[in-house]
């Protein structure tokens, strides 16, 4: 087996190409969870990127799915945009997009489902330390989710990494506000 590690970062190139379709249709998005920590140098593997988009209609999603298809992406769950919307997104389930002919990495796409997701999207930000021109949920949001909701060893280590990297720049009042919103909406 001939495995070569290229100089070009696979995940970044994958996200950039995927987000082109969202930008074209002016759909707001945020990258959340593991990739936020990894893009700050956190030493762990990942095969997927978690993405939340603002609420869109079925018609808008069908257009997005068609554009993604033209850009060389496919959902692992199927091809028909209307069915994908009705069977997955309407039920708050994620769609998993890959480049055609590949299996990894995956983009796990969800639609904003509640006040908490809408809050994350409203406060989305670019994170200069990553060196990437993508929108992320804020560091405070990521800390709140990982410490209050997700809580797996991996998530707690991601949070620890981000806390050390950002140090005193973290707005603890904002972390507290989002934790309260998590308790209200998800727990």
């Amino acid at each position, binding site marked *: 087996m001939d*495995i070569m590690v290229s100089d070009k*970062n696979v995940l970044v190139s994958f996200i950039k190409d995927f987000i082109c379709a969202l930008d074209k249709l002016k759909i707001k998005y945020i990258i959340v969870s593991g990739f936020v920590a990894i893009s700050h140098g*956190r030493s762990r*593997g*990942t*095969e997927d990127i978690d993405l939340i988009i603002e609420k869109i209609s079925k018609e808008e999603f069908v257009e997005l799915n068609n554009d993604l298809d033209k850009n060389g992406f496919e959902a692992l769950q199927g091809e028909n945009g209307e069915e994908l919307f009705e069977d997955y997104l309407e039920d708050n389930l994620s769609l998993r997009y890959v480049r055609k002919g590949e299996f990894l990495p995956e983009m796990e796409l969800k639609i904003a489902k509640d006040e908490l997701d809408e809050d994350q999207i409203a406060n989305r930000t670019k994170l200069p330390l990553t060196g990437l021109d993508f929108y992320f949920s804020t560091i405070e949001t990521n800390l709140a989710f990982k410490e209050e909701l997700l809580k797996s060893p991996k998530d707690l280590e991601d949070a620890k990494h981000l806390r050390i990297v950002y140090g005193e720049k973290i707005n603890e009042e904002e972390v507290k506000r989002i934790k309260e919103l998590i308790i209200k909406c998800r727990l």
Partner: protein
Amino acid sequence: MDFVEFWAKKCRENMSACQKEVNQMVDSQIELGNAFYKRIGRKKALEILLK
């Protein structure tokens, strides 16, 4: 100090060096994963990935 703390401090001092090392690791993991799924075929790969 555990590894997470050690590594995060290293990143705080030199983020781009940290990112470069992590990117290489992640790219390698993805290439190996893709090679595996292609070897077992689409049907089996989807069974695993969508279970």
